[in-house]
C-alpha cells in the first residue's frame, strides 16, 4: 500500500513539473510585440519599410551612423522638433517623406522602446500560410510519435527492470509473490485514470469557455474581398471604406458606391499580381470576383453605365445588396462604440482586429470576451491633453483630480480603468 501512495506522489510531482515548464516561458517576450502592435504597426514593420523604416536592425543602423545609444529615445519623444535640427532625422525625413508622430515618454517609455527594438531584432517572418500549415502538422505528428516511442521505451525498460530483478532475486534465493501483469498494476491504472481525468477536464473547460466565442471565425464571403490586396498592397486607409468607425457606433460595411469609386476603372485583377488564395488554399479568380461586384451594383462594364431603373425601386435594375456575413458579433447586452475607441481613444484598428492588411480572408483576431476588454482597459493609458505641445485629447480635461495628481507627481499615468473603464454600467445597461 505504501508503494502505491509513493508512486502516486511521484506521479503528481512529475506532472506538476511538466505543467509548470509548459506554461512558464513565452510570457516575458510578448511585451515588445504587444506594444509594437498597439503603437507602431500602423507605420512600421519589423522587416521591410512601410511609411516608416523597418525596425529590425534599427540599433545597428543607429550605431553605424555614429549616433549615441540614447538617440532613439530622444527621437521617439521629440520627432517634430528633432527633424528641424538633427541631421540624421533630416535624412530620415528626406528618405521617407513623412515625420513620425512623437510618442512622449508617458506613452512609450525607454524600456518600451528597448522591448520593441529587441523584439524586432529577434523577429523572423512567419512562413506563408499554405506551407506553414503542412509543416506545423508535420511537427506535431513527429512530436506525438516521439512521445509514443519514448513512452514505449520507458514502459519496456520498466518491464525489463522487473524481469531482471526477478532473476536476481531468484539467484539470491529471495522469494517474492508472483508479479502482477502491468495492466492490473494499480499504480499504472492510477496514472492512466489521472491522465484521462486531467485531459477530459481540460477539454470540458475549453469547450465551456469557448461556447459563444468566435475567435478565428472566418466565413466565406459572397465576394472574395481581399483586405490584403486593398489595405495592404494598395494602402487604402481602413477609414476610406469604414469611415463610420470615426463618427459612429458602427464601423459600417461600405455601400456599393464606395467599391465602385475605384472599380468603375479597375475591371480586372492583374495577372502579374500575387495569386489570390482562399484560407483553405484553393485559388480565386480575382477578375470573376470583380464581375460579381458589378452584378450586385447593377453596373454594365461594357457601356460603363449603371443599368436604367425601369422598375422604379430607386436602384439600378438587377442591383441587390451584397449579403456580407458579419464576423465580429457582440451580444445584445454589450454596448460597444467604435468612435469612442478610434476617435477619442486613438486606438489603431489593428489593436483589436489584428493585421487586417495581411489577411486575404478576414478572421476574428480577438476573443471579444469580457476579460479581453477589461485587460485592455486596465493597461491602456489615457492620452491627457498636454499644453506644451498641444498633443493629447482635450476631452479628458474634466478629470481635474487626475491632472493635479500627475502634476504633483502622485500619479505617473492614468489608465482607462481609473476613468471608469471597468464600471459595469459603462458597457452593460
Amino acid at each position, binding site marked *: 500500500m505504501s508503494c502505491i501512495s509513493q508512486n502516486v506522489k511521484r506521479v503528481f510531482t512529475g506532472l506538476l513539473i511538466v505543467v509548470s515548464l509548459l506554461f512558464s516561458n513565452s510570457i516575458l517576450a510578448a511585451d515588445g510585440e504587444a506594444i509594437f502592435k498597439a503603437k507602431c504597426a500602423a507605420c512600421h514593420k519589423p522587416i521591410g519599410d512601410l511609411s516608416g523604416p523597418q525596425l529590425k536592425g534599427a540599433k545597428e543602423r543607429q550605431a553605424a551612423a555614429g549616433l549615441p545609444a540614447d538617440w532613439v529615445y530622444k527621437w521617439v519623444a521629440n520627432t517634430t522638433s528633432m527633424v528641424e535640427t538633427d541631421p540624421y532625422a533630416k535624412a530620415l525625413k528626406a528618405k521617407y517623406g513623412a515625420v513620425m508622430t512623437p510618442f512622449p515618454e508617458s506613452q512609450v517609455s525607454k524600456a518600451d522602446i528597448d522591448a520593441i527594438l529587441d523584439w524586432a531584432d529577434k523577429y523572423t517572418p512567419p512562413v506563408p500560410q499554405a506551407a506553414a500549415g503542412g509543416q506545423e502538422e508535420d511537427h506535431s505528428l513527429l512530436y506525438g510519435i516521439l512521445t509514443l516511442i519514448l513512452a514505449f521505451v520507458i514502459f519496456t525498460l520498466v518491464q525489463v527492470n522487473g524481469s531482471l530483478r526477478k532473476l536476481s532475486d531468484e539467484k539470491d534465493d529471495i522469494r517474492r509473490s508472483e508479479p502482477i501483469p502491468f495492466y492490473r498494476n494499480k499504480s499504472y491504472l492510477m496514472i492512466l485514470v489521472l491522465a484521462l481525468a486531467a485531459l477530459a477536464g481540460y477539454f470540458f473547460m475549453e469547450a465551456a469557455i469557448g461556447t459563444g466565442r468566435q475567435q478565428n471565425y472566418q466565413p466565406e464571403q459572397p465576394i472574395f474581398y481581399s483586405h490584403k490586396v486593398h489595405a495592404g498592397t494598395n494602402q487604402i486607409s481602413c477609414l476610406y471604406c469604414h469611415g463610420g468607425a470615426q463618427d459612429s457606433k*458602427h464601423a459600417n460595411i461600405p455601400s456599393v458606391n*464606395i467599391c465602385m469609386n475605384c472599380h468603375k476603372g479597375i475591371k480586372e485583377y492583374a495577372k502579374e499580381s500575387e495569386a489570390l488564395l482562399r484560407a483553405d488554399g484553393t485559388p480565386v479568380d480575382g477578375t470573376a470576383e470583380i464581375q460579381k461586384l458589378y452584378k450586385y451594383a447593377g453596373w454594365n462594364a461594357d457601356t460603363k453605365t449603371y443599368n436604367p431603373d425601369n422598375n422604379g425601386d430607386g436602384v439600378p435594375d438587377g442591383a441587390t445588396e451584397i449579403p456580407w456575413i458579419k464576423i465580429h458579433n457582440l451580444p445584445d447586452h454589450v454596448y460597444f462604440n467604435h468612435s469612442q475607441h478610434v476617435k477619442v481613444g486613438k486606438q489603431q484598428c489593428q489593436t483589436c482586429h489584428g493585421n487586417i492588411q495581411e489577411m486575404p480572408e478576414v478572421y476574428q483576431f480577438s476573443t471579444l470576451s469580457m476579460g479581453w476588454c477589461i485587460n485592455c482597459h486596465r493597461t491602456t493609458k489615457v492620452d491627457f491633453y498636454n499644453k506644451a505641445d498641444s498633443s493629447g485629447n482635450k476631452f479628458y480635461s474634466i478629470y481635474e483630480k487626475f491632472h493635479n495628481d500627475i502634476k504633483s507627481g502622485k500619479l505617473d499615468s492614468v489608465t482607462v480603468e481609473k476613468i471608469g473603464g471597468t464600471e459595469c454600467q459603462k458597457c452593460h445597461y
Partner: protein
Amino acid sequence: MKKTFIITAFIITTAVVLISCGSGPRRDTGRIYMPDMAYSRAYETYAQRDSLVFFSDMSNPANWGSKIFYNNQPVTGTIKRGGNAAYALLNDSAGYIASAAIVNPYPPMDKADSTETSRLYNINCGVCHGAGGQANGPVAGKLGGVRDLTSDLVLKLADGTIFHSITYGKNNMGGYASQLNSKQRWLIVQYVRALQRKAAPAATATTAVAAIPAKADTVKTK
C-alpha cells in the same frame, strides 16, 4: 496479451485523433449559450432585413405602412443642426456649369481644421491623387486617368466646381457625398488650393513634373 493490444490501440487512436484536430479555417460560428441574446431580434446595423425595397420618398402616402428603410434621406427642405442646406444643383452638365458661381461659405482654415482636413484628404483623396495632389497615390497607376490637382486645369476651376466634382464625382471618380459631409468637402476644396500653392513654384521650375499629368490624360482619352 489481447488486453495489452486493446489498450495500446485505444491510446494510439486517441493520440492520432487529438493531433489531427484543429487544422483548416474555421467556417462556422460554433455553439452559443443564448442565440436570441447573441443575435439581436431587433433590427441592428448589418443585420439582415427581410425587405429589399428601397423607398426614397416617404412623403408619398402610397409608401406609408410599407417596411421602414432606416437609411432614408432627410425630409426635403430640412437642415441638420449646424449643417448646410442640401446641395441644390443636380448632377448634370447644367449643374456642373452653374456650380462655378457657388462660393465657399467657410472662412479660411485654422490650424485644427487644417490638420483634420489633411487627415481626411489623405484617407479619401490621397489614395489616388497623392499626398501632394500630383496624381501619384498608390492606386493612381492602376486606375489611370487620375487628375493632377496641381495642374493648370484644376488651378483654373472655380471652388464651386471642385466642390461639385467631389460631391457627385467626375469621369472615373465617384461622388464623395456619402463619406464626407458638406463642411468637410468645402474644407478639402481649401486644402486642394493650399496644395496648389505649395506646388506652384516647383511646377514652374521643373518640366519633369508636367510630364506626369500629360501621361495620365492620354490614358483617360483612350
